[in-house]
């Protein structure tokens, strides 16, 4: 069983959910009338209604608290890009398919377009801006450069973050593992051959940093 799976079977962590989203925007109880939602709602703390206007929130981005005001409907991706000028994560499909907006939130890779900014509070949000610079590239970014795993480059930040997140949970992966681990990111220029080589190189350079976690 992989590290990820064992976590899933353990105590559930607080994370973004559609239920939280519905409560957040103050949907009536009718929408919560399905068995699943009603049962979950009982177990959850009382709903706090926010919005629909802008609400003040604090996001912990790359280790620093950032205060901003967002409407509850604003995604994490849009908050980063439009309000905070943190534009490494790209908005491409805007519905959780292509991975161009990938960031790491609370240690998990997530699609920034599929998380509401208000639900991203209280977790460390790691964006590509937080893991290196052009002068001092993160080992994953360096591996992408070394293996020419970018052409137009628009998907690259998302790929780098997805790759970092995957490698942090899976030491010593095989090429086959990347098909699953990076299958949630799409590239239109067709850089996958470079991405595979980059991921393998990064796995080697990051291995000591992975803290002995093993792929099960």
């Amino acid at each position: 069983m992989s590290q990820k799976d064992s976590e899933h079977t353990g105590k559930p962590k607080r994370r973004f959910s559609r239920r939280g989203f519905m409560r957040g925007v103050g949907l009536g109880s009718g929408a919560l009338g399905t068995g699943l939602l009603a049962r979950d709602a009982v177990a959850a703390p009382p709903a706090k209604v926010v919005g629909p206007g802008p609400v003040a929130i604090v996001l912990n981005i790359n280790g620093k608290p950032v205060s901003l005001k967002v409407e509850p409907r604003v995604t994490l991706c849009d908050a980063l890009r439009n309000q905070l000028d943190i534009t490494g994560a790209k908005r491409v499909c805007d519905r959780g398919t292509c991975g161009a907006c990938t960031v790491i939130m609370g240690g998990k890779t997530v699609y920034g377009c599929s998380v509401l900014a208000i639900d991203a509070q209280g977790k460390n949000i790691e964006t590509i801006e937080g893991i290196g610079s052009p002068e001092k590239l993160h080992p994953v970014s360096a591996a992408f450069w070394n293996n020419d795993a970018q052409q137009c480059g628009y998907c690259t930040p998302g790929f780098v973050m997805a790759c970092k997140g995957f490698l942090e949970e899976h030491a010593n992966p095989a090429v086959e593992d990347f098909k699953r681990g990076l299958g949630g990111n799409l590239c239109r220029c067709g850089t996958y051959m470079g991405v595979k080589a980059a991921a393998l190189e990064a796995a080697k350079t990051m291995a000591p940093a992975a803290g002995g976690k093993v792929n099960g």
Partner: protein
Amino acid sequence: MADTPNYNWPPMDTRKVIGTRPKRLDGPMKSSGRAKYSSDLNLKDMLHGVYLTCPHAHARVKSIDTSAAEKADGVQSVYVIAPAGTELQWQSAEIAAVAALTEDQARDAVRLIRVEYEVLPHNVLDADLARIAAPYAQKAGERMQGDPDKAFTEAEVVSEGKYGIPVVTHCCLEPHGQVIQWQGNGDGSQIQVWPSTQDVTDYAGDLGQSLKVPVNNIKVKMEYIGGGFGSKFGPDAWAITGANLSQKAGGRPVKLWLDRATEQIMAGNRPSLFAKVKVAGKKDGTITGWQGETWGSGGVTGLTMPNNVPYVFDIPNSRRNHTQVKVNGGPSRAWRAPGNQQASYITCAAIEDFAAKAGLDPVEVFAKNLGYAPKARQDTYRFQLAKAAELAEWKTLWHPRGQSGPGPIKRGLGLAIGTWQGAGHASQCRTIINPDGGVRVEIDTQDLGTGTRTVIVQVVAETLGVPMSQIKLLIGSNDLPRDGSSGGSTTVGGVSTSSRRSSVNALAKLFDVVAPDLGVEPGQLEATEGQIRVKGTPGKSLTWAAACRKLGTASISEMGIFTARGDAAGMTTGGVCGVQIADVSVDVETGVVKMNRYTAVHDCGLIINPRLAESVVYGAVIGGIGTALYEERILDQQTGKMLNPDMEFYKIAGIADVGDIRVHLDIREENDKRGVVGLGEPPAIPICGAIGNAVANAIGVRVPCMPMTPDRVLNALEGRA
């Protein structure tokens, strides 16, 4: 004075930078997420623009009321594109747009615009001619050469087949759009625009014409572009809209980018092409006749008869008929080798079907008929056919069609070819040598991800004998010397020629300055390894820094001008080949096609950076795998709407889908001496043909229409295709 400058490329064996494999220069910016694309910009006082688009495939605007939108929160300007009476010919045609303080405010306001439509009849069918109503299908005539009837009467073997590639979309990850600011009006206007364009060069001229603003007053700036593939050239309707929104909002900059659905529906697609083909020939594989009926659509204008089917092979006896199909869908745009993928697929599939019918090996049939290919290319094709077959282990792995052995997983190999021109476009470049030894290169080109930045700097470094790191390159602004659009694989030939010339010219000026110090004529000097030295007397030299110090305070600034009209000899040329072989496995129980291995062999003249050239080929092949197996714009005739304007149901290939890809660049001296040739398009051409033929070879029947989805494969196996 120096002799007349010799611009020729240095001989292959003396090159120090050209032909080597430096990493792409913008790699650190891109892989650290710091590269600022135009769609990343957040300017002071910037507004967000959002479109209202037409929900119908064909309609007329009866009335439009924007009053509620104008009063909505945050709205700064509203611009109507389609006033009452406007006829709209496709879903997502632009109706109006709003600029507001936030994107969400603009979206809310757009929903308050009230439009009444008169819905008009539409057609969105293009594949099945029998189902298309008469006004939408128009015969485009017949073309004939030789005596096809005689060829078919006398044929020893006749094969028949149906083939098709539907409309696919460009699906650039960075959508179309721009940030634009229009201050003032008329001749007093000042416009700044940050677009996503393959044509920084002519963007301002086009925009100035559309907005009636002096081109002198338009500044265009683009550092990076997130994919174009042929769909992003001129300013387009959204630049006009964005500019008007900006002007109406008192000159505040407006950020207007298409959302994914609009992007997929109307911002770029490739025309479909379908065909019924009969091939006549002899038992030995010689093809003698071609009879082809084609049809396809590029949108409401239809699609004119393609002049390249049959492709590469000019078959002596042929009859061709074509029908233009008009579809109420977004207009087609150039797509990485326009028309060539479709032509290559139909031709190579028909030849493979002929080979199968004759019981022959297709490699031999392609080789046998190379006499019909352009004379200048025949030897290259012959070489590349053999090379690709060798790399793909054709002799070991190929089997006659359908003889794939027992079990549900059937393996097959297929072959297809391509050709392209790709000579450099007219280009101007400036090389500046500063007294401190720094070098600056200025050219208004763009780097689509093909490596344009890197190859320019390699050329200059080679010419001046200085490290690449000493060269600062400026591109992506219309303030710089005029290059040209990145279309037709013309960029690398253009920029390499002009930057070579500007650097040779600048170096000649430096030689003039330092020659007296070295006691020789300027023509006796050479620049290499960071030194200016006397040819044949390496001891007599100055370091680059010492030589540049002789300039005092005066930089050298020289232009390199390439007109692309007869002054290209040895620098850049057009006309390349390419042979690709697909190796697939097909599960005949599920219909799933899996890529095992793909082999691509291409020549492109003198190759400046093989690392980046290989990446271009990998990328083209992967794009083609998507077209062959997954991609299709699906329009619903009932509603006229696109059913998959997204990225979950409009599927492009992912990392797990592509198998192993092997690229062989045909770098032989005889290719090298032709000069630089573009590579963006050629490798994108043969993929549907190669994979389609491999699937036919594996399962014993032709899957006529791309993409070869499981249902189409199963239908073909059941004889229902």
